[in-house]
């Protein structure tokens, strides 16, 4: 498999309540080994996946939010979050975990992985992708 495709993982569900978000993150981590052009989208309730200070103690289930911080080390550093989905839920960028990566093309400067995009821009990103993995 020498060809490189543009893969986009689309997260649409809240992190808890169903397992989709966690099992989606597992796909992203495994998929990183395939050396493709990867980006991850967060829309609808999927934006909650990136909220900071997640605490699942009351639920008695695993808090996997720290795993998102490892994405940068896996060269998964294009995280697109839909502006309209954030706004509809009363969230801003300040409510999200700061996720960063080290840019090897810029003397390993630390850069933000999260980019807020409009639904129109998100639609264009979908259009430009070769494969959409929906969760």
């Amino acid at each position, binding site marked *: 498999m020498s060809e490189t495709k543009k893969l986009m993982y689309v997260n649409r569900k809240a992190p808890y309540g169903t397992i989709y978000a966690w099992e989606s993150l597992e796909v992203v981590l*495994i998929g990183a080994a395939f050396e493709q052009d990867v980006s991850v989208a967060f829309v609808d309730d999927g934006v909650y996946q990136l909220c900071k200070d997640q605490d699942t103690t009351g639920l008695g289930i695993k808090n996997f939010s720290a795993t998102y911080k490892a994405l940068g080390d896996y060269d998964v550093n294009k995280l697109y979050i839909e502006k309209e989905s954030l706004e509809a839920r009363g969230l801003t960028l300040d409510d999200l975990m700061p996720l960063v990566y080290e840019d090897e093309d810029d003397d390993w400067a630390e850069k933000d992985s999260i980019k807020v995009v409009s639904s129109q821009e998100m639609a264009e990103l979908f259009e430009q992708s070769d494969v959409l993995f929906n969760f």
Partner: protein
Amino acid sequence: MKLSIQVNEGPYNHEASVSALNYTKAALEAGHEIFRVFFYHDGVNNGTRYTTPPQDDINIANSWSELADKHGLDLVVCVAAAQRRGIVDEGEQERNGKDGNNIAPGFRISGLGQLIEAGIQSERLVVFGD
């Protein structure tokens, strides 16, 4: 066209599995190639041979097995999702010290890389589920 199918829901709670089954049949009849069918999330529950629905209802797991046998389909169950939900083949039985296995004929348990590969190798990845 070369297609891959992803099934994200179990066989009876949700119509996704039977829709995927019907879609796969129709695609094969129309002359398309099915590179792989990948079962993820609760979709792994399609891969047990122990389902026994009433006789007047469709046996969805058996239908997948029959379709795989007829067309040589590659039915892959995600190992991590299967381990969580108790879908076991002989290898998993041995590795995890279980007292039996329940994988249905035509299904195999493998890793998530099989889903990524299916996405890369196919012209379309068609996903069934919410």
